[in-house]
């Protein structure tokens, strides 16, 4: 699983261009920052109130007044700037963040996203996710292709015709990156653009509960090791 997550993070990182301002979600999305292509330097925004996040702080060097949005002690770059939550979300909502990478519970054919609540089960709250996916210029979903139920051992598709969980936002997803493939969300629907050599197109279709348009330019999943 760790390897699959690394693969997904590496593929997501290839979407970043030099000079991007980006916001990375907790968990797998955070890993993306570690695999940026050579020559690509980005500025990370942290929604609790700064630009210039530079990862987690080594133990012993923590500054108690610098945390990231996951509540971990964080490191700041030389160009850091700190601000209040209204400015932070102004930067997000105002389109000043080029890309955000987030996880998802469900994504559907229309680019609808559900990643914040499972009624009756998980009560967490949307935090900054609703603002981020509405405000960021490019929304990249990084996730394992199917949801594994640990009790039953059965995997269920997370890419669906229509999300069944309460939505985070409507029609906001631009790109879906899983361990199996890369899918672009287009006006026509979900366009399968890359498939990892470990899988066939049929494998991807079988693991997906939505209509996939196979790109005429279908390529191997692009991860430079």
């Amino acid at each position, binding site marked *: 699983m760790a390897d699959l997550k690394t693969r997904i993070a590496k593929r997501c990182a290839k979407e970043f261009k030099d000079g991007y301002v980006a916001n990375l979600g907790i968990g797998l999305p955070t890993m993306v920052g570690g695999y940026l292509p050579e020559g690509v330097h980005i500025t990370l925004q942290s929604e609790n*109130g700064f630009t210039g996040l530079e990862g987690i702080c080594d133990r012993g060097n923590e500054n*108690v*007044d610098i945390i990231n949005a996951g509540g971990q002690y964080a490191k700041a770059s030389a160009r850091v700037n700190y601000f*209040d*939550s*209204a400015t932070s979300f102004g930067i997000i909502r105002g389109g000043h963040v080029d890309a955000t990478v987030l996880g998802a519970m469900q994504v559907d054919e229309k680019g609808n996203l559900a990643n914040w609540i499972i009624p009756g089960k998980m009560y967490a*709250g*949307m935090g900054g996710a*609703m603002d981020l996916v509405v405000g960021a210029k490019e929304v990249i979903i990084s996730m394992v292709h199917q949801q594994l139920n640990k009790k039953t051992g059965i995997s269920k598709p997370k890419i669906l015709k229509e999300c069944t969980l309460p939505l985070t*936002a409507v029609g906001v997803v631009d790109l879906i990156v899983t361990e199996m493939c890369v899918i672009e969300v287009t006006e026509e629907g979900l366009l399968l653009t890359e498939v990892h050599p470990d899988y066939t197109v049929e494998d991807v279709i079988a693991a997906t509960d939505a209509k996939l348009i196979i790109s005429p330019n279908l390529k191997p999943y692009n991860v430079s090791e």
Partner: protein
Amino acid sequence: MASKIKTAQEAIAGIKEGMSIMVGGFMAAGTPEILIDAILEKGVKNLTIICNDGGLPKGWYNEYDTARGVGKLLEAGVIDHIIASHVGLTPLVGKGVFDGTMKCTLIPQGSLAEKIRAGNFGLGGILTPTGLGTVAADGKMQIEVDGKMYVLEKPLRADYSFCRASICDEFGNFLCNKTTKNFNYLMAGAADHNIIATEKLVKVGELEPDTLQHSGVLVDMIVEGEKPWQI
């Protein structure tokens, strides 16, 4: 001019059962712990708390940690209603909601910030695209401006606001270090009674004015003695 300097007990003396309190901080970074402690000591109950989150539960940074910020109020069971954007770190909220012992209103973080800013600064609300087509827009007016739809988020105020400063002067001009600004710069002034708990208190004129970023006219009471976090 009457002094704004109070003890924590004096500052919160007017807080009664059922009142609403805005609490600054993000996962307790920037939350004034000495005011939270004073509330617990006083034993007021049935509070409505407006905060980004539920603070931190016991043992977040290491196993010896106590709960922090709003997390302490959750443990003590003195919150009836919490208005927040994220409560995933503090399972007591989810438990309370499922049990029916607590009400929780979830608001997207950027909208929560703007609702408080609107309440503080005389606006009748703000229009945001965030939440359109989701349950976050349920029951809220939707308004079209120049062909784009927005959700109307109304202003939010409270009886009291608890903010935390790194440095504050005796007039209430204050600075929050680094990522402790978060909701503190929005909540100070957004309540009928606005209290700042500060790590360091300085005399008026002691520092270069630009050092203290936020205006003391938004502050009613100042309490000294906030401690830096322990790692």
